[in-house]
């Protein structure tokens, strides 16, 4: 089956029904392996054991941004091609992205308190991440406000494209402004500044989180397609009753 075939909702449902249990199983195995590697990794020479929070905080931050990236591509699918599966993707992804961004903020605060002496500071990285979380809440609220799914999809698509401006701001905030948050240490010119014994468990945890995101997204998209089928039948029921 080609990827383009999945753009058909019926074919997507067949694919999701088959893939979700397998992806869930592989995600569980990868998390078990990742957590065992993270727990046995050495402490950081400066931060000590609190570096273990990084194995949650960094993947959650990446996934929060990746999810908005997925929503941005879906927004283009909605506005340019008006494809219903693009609307479904955007709607299903928003709560998942919000959850990952919230996890990033919470774990960041819990990491910041012992390292910086404060849970929160209004520096550029933290503030731009908080803005991303608020944007997710705005998208979820907009989906719930407009009753007609196709009208809601267009309004959400515009907000998503405008909100995508926040992604490079988050990424480069530590370079553009003087922040309390540390500078880029994983993906940077000249290579990562993190020692491999800490970096490898981080990548395993990032892979586990990414697989979790894919599994949840497919399952949530399947739910959204079912919800639209229910809506169509209820409209049919209402029109026959009147």
């Amino acid at each position, binding site marked *: 089956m080609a990827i383009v075939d999945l753009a058909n909702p019926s074919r997507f449902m067949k694919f999701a029904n088959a893939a979700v249990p397998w992806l869930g199983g592989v995600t569980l195995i990868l998390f078990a392996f990742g957590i065992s590697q993270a727990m046995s990794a050495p402490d950081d020479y400066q931060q000590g054991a609190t570096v273990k929070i990084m194995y949650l905080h960094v993947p959650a931050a990446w996934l929060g941004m990746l999810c908005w990236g997925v929503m941005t591509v879906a927004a283009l699918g909605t506005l340019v091609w008006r494809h219903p599966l693009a609307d479904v993707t955007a709607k299903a992804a928003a709560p998942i992205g919000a959850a990952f961004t*919230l996890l990033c903020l*919470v*774990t960041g605060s819990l990491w910041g308190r012992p390292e910086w002496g404060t849970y929160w500071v209004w520096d550029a990285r933290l503030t731009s991440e908080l803005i991303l979380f608020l944007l997710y809440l705005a998208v979820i609220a907009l989906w719930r406000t407009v009753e007609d799914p196709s009208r809601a999809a267009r309004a959400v698509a515009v907000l998503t494209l405008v909100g995508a401006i926040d992604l490079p701001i988050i990424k480069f905030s530590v370079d553009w402004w003087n922040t309390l948050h540390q500078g880029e240490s994983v993906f940077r010119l000249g290579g990562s500044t993190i020692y491999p014994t800490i970096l490898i468990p981080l990548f395993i945890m990032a892979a586990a989180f990414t697989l979790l995101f894919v599994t949840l997204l497919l399952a949530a998209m399947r739910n959204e397609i079912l919800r639209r089928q*229910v809506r*169509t039948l209820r409209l049919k029921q209402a029109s026959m009753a009147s």
Partner: protein
Amino acid sequence: MDTVPHLDFIAAAYGAAVIVVAVLISWVVLDYYAQRRALAELEMMGFTRRSAMEQAEKQA
């Protein structure tokens, strides 16, 4: 005696992750069963999807 410094912050972070992931999984699973139930009820009342009707006609 606290053998691992800041163990409470580390435990709280992992606890938060467990809660967030558990909420996400519960939301997806409960929503799936709710939608399936709603669809089954409507189909029992005779309201079927066009694709389901076409499939039934083909089988007949």
